[in-house]
């Protein structure tokens, strides 16, 4: 197709502002899917996405639309809104010339609205702002339009006000895309250069690369090369996404489509790599992506030590679809053989947990999440550690540095006080405040990453009645007075329960952890002391009182089988706990650090 008739766009927005629903309407309007095929948030095809109503992976679709007598090809990429998956947005943007910025008319500009918008502007994309959900009673389309005008300089009256859900004025969005987003440029006759902006694993076709062709063309299924790795690909097929894969065996400059690469594992192909022809290919690759950096780390163990092999297999398979997931083997005295996993954030961790449990039917234990610390050793070397158990003895350490990030919070201004209180409590520092309008404010601050990965977002939501949103980016490492807090159960330290905390918080957190453990650990035959300690110093303690009595009162009437089964069940329940020094510790204990602040 003539390049002038192609538009490549992403839909970006804060979480839940209606990206996927707008994509539904656009697909419907362009006849890409029939009314019969249509279902809500069609592009959210993973089970977990459908269940949580949240987009996790970006998806692409090609649409054909007639406008003023001409036929246009619009390649649309729906992106996730959640902060953990921002990398998906950035990748998608690089394949586009424009971005539709959706803003919820009842919520206005939120943290990820800004974050994603800035990412799009950085790529020089043309922004098409859209105000969605005007059907909501709480909608304030005019106010929000003004906020957007302030931000982008687009006249408020030119911004389409739509309802993706009830299908009001959606056509205006299509018109603006065609009128405002520039067509792609690129020489069809130059050597092939196609950017891999996403990869996924298909059980039948192997690794599928989603590509944006910038120059040249692919005709048929020629041998290709991935320029960074030098790997040669023997593609099975080439085509476009409708959103199902449709074989065309032809893709040309300016277009978006897929290549079934013939590769077997995702590790064989880097997202961000440039694909060219094996014979007569390009010499210079396109700019790629920053490698993904996990922010949060946690131990993962099978509940039943026998399942270690199964867990390893499951992680391998999961990684096929989730390139952001990294892991390596780890062992724990309390939990046995397991893995250390790296995640983009806590939501990502939650998703991985659910997928392991659901898709692989595994009973698993996660330990408390941790960030990555830099430890300056007395011998002058520097260690990076992401597990409390790995923290060397205090005598060998000169200093510990922890990651800080820049945190941006968007909120109605009446909550400034309580937000600042929260930020200060979590060791944060205010950088500046920007008024978005008379009622809403953006608070920028610096804060240790470890303080926001656990429980921060929930607390922020609770304090602002759900109105605040946040976004953060890793900034720098700063020296910190961090100590390892150990939990001793029945006098024995339980390595998987240790956490690294700031010395000032150690006392409070130790107390909370001890009382949490006291709640969680079932009463045993004997009294079990639970202690929190820093080094040799006990800072908090509590006892789980011995069980007073545990005996079946009645055992007659001949139904011995049932009584026996009851006892067997009791024993089986214990098997799901971890034995540490004769004490059974339930699995939830290992995650309880996540809920320390809950009352």
């Amino acid at each position: 197709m003539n390049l002038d008739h192609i538009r490549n766009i992403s839909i970006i927005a804060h979480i839940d502002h209606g990206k996927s629903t707008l994509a539904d309407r656009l697909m419907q309007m362009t006849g890409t899917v029939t009314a019969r095929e249509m279902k809500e948030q069609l592009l959210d095809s993973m089970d977990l996405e459908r269940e949580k109503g949240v987009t996790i992976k970006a998806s692409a679709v090609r649409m054909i639309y007639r406008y003023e007598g001409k036929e246009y090809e619009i390649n649309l990429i729906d992106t996730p809104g959640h902060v953990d998956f921002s990398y998906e947005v950035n990748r998608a943007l690089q394949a586009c010339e424009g971005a539709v910025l959706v803003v919820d008319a009842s919520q206005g500009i939120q943290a990820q609205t800004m974050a994603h918008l800035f990412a799009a502007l950085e790529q020089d994309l043309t922004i098409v702002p859209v105000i969605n959900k005007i059907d909501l009673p709480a909608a304030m389309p005019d106010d929000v339009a003004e906020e957007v005008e302030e931000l982008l300089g687009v006249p408020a009256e030119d911004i389409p006000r739509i309802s993706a859900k009830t299908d009001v004025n959606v056509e205006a969005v299509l018109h603006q895309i065609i009128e405002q987003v520039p067509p792609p440029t690129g020489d069809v006759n130059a050597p092939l250069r196609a950017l891999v902006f996403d990869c996924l694993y298909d059980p039948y076709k192997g690794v599928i690369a989603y590509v944006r062709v910038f120059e040249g063309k692919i005709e048929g299924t020629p041998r290709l090369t991935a320029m960074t790795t030098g790997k040669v690909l023997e593609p099975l097929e080439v085509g476009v996404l409708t959103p199902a894969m449709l074989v065309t065996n032809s893709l040309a400059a300016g277009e978006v489509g897929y290549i079934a690469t013939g590769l077997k594992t995702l590790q064989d192909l880097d997202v961000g790599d440039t694909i060219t022809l094996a014979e007569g290919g390009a010499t210079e690759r396109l700019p790629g992506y920053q490698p993904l950096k996990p922010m949060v780390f946690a131990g993962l163990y099978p509940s039943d030590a026998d399942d270690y092999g199964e867990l390893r297999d499951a992680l391998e398979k999961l990684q096929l679809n989730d390139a952001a997931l990294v892991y390596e083997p780890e062992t724990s005295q309390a939990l046995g053989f397991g893995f250390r996993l790296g995640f983009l954030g806590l939501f990502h961790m939650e998703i991985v947990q659910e997928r392991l449990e659901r898709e692989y039917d595994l009973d698993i234990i996660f330990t408390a999440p941790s960030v990555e610390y830099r430890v300056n050793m007395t011998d002058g070397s520097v260690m990076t550690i992401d597990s409390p158990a790995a923290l060397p003895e205090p005598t060998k350490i000169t200093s510990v540095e922890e990651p800080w990030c820049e945190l941006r919070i968007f909120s109605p201004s009446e909550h400034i006080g309580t937000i600042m209180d929260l930020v200060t409590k979590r060791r944060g520092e205010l950088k500046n405040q920007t008024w978005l309008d008379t009622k809403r404010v953006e608070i920028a601050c610096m804060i240790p990453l470890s303080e926001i990965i656990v429980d921060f977002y929930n607390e922020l939501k609770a304090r602002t009645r759900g109105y605040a949103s946040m976004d953060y980016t890793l900034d720098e490492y700063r020296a910190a007075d961090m100590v390892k807090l150990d939990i001793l159960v029945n006098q024995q330290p339980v390595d998987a329960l240790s956490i690294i905390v700031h010395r000032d918080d150690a006392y409070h957190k130790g107390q909370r952890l001890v009382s949490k453990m006291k709640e969680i650990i079932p009463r045993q035959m004997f009294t079990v002391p639970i202690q929190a300690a820093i080094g040799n110093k006990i800072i908090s303690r509590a006892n789980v009182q011995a069980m007073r009595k545990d005996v079946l009162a009645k055992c007659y009437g001949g139904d011995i089988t049932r009584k026996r089964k009851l006892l067997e069940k009791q024993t089986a329940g214990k098997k799901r706990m971890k034995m540490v020094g004769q004490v059974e510790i339930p699995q939830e204990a290992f995650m309880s650090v996540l809920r320390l602040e809950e009352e």
Partner: protein
Amino acid sequence: MDSIPSPVDPFGLYIHIPFCERKCPYCDFNTYAGLGDLFERTVDALCAEMAGRRSRLGDRPVTSVFVGGGTPTVLADAQLEQLMAAVHASFSLAAGCEITFEANPGTVDRDKFGCLRSLGVNRLSIGVQSFQPEELRFLGRIHDVEDVYRAFDAARTAGFGNINLDFIFGLPHQEMAQWQDTLGRALALGPEHLSLYSLIVEPNTPLYHWVATGKTDAPDEDMAGELYEATIERLAAAGYVHYEVSNWAKPGSTQPPDAVLMPEYACRHNLVYWRNQEYLGIGPGAHSHLRRRDEQGRAVSRRWSNHKPVPGYVRRVQQAEPVEDFAEEVGPRLSMGETMMLGLRLVREGVERERFQALHRCDMEEVFAAQLRDLQAWGMIETDAARVRTTRRGLLMGNQTAALFLPDEAVETDALEAGQH
């Protein structure tokens, strides 16, 4: 495969009467109110089931009969006569056979007890549950405190010299004083036997629902423990022998209570269960346990139970269909575990080494070396040349102790569908 029992081995017969005047909210027994229309057909069916069992058991003597439920005393005298006639027609009762009937103070009078006496019944188990009027109401009992005194008096007058009274403690918010008052009144009556149970909130009962929905508070486990220990002290002082977790009986001899391993007035029938011996259950939902030797001479057994719903049970018997609903084969290892699980409930007797050896043809010490060593180290059991039994601590932690003897997974158990035999 030869059958184990010698003619003197205990063999219990249990007959289940699945009827009550009203269903108590805490009760999960297989018993129903308002089934008056079914009494006759059910009694016929019970008699027919007994007749059918006879051929399979030969004339092995029955050493105890227990007619329970439910409330057997809801049946008419003629029905009770019919039942006992069937017992005698189908089984041979050993000399001195214990014959127990359960009775509800609300469904008995002097005539009813007289009838039971005339039928050869020599032991009564009366469900009293409490002497506190408000507790009786909470427990949904059909009788009041006065009924209890009347019933006990009537039983004595009718000539019953071996009476058990059933009580429940550990009700939500029950205080020590209330329970002590109940105990005092019970002891004042001087029954030969007392069964004192801590209240269990059983699933599928109204009580369970009340607790789940917050209508009633759950019983306090710590308090129940306190009441239980106080009970142990008080009954010892009153001269009763604590012979099973929830059962006390008069020693019946001049021996000092401390030296008694098994009181004379212990319930012979229930001992069959706790000693992992054999029994046949008749009636809807009734359980049975019969033993045999496997190829290597080890004790294995079969446990089974009858179809539970009454109409279905009756129909099956009438149409000469199998009444079993559930059955499992208990392998040698599991059978040993059961012997320990059950025997450790016997506070004085415990598990006798010789009995274990005779039954399982192996040494308890060999099979359970690790468990016995650990439990002893934890102070849960005490052992001597003759027996293994629990300490006070082990008694209170009976479930923990018993569970150790059960195989990890009951791999040896196969649930079998009825009718495959």
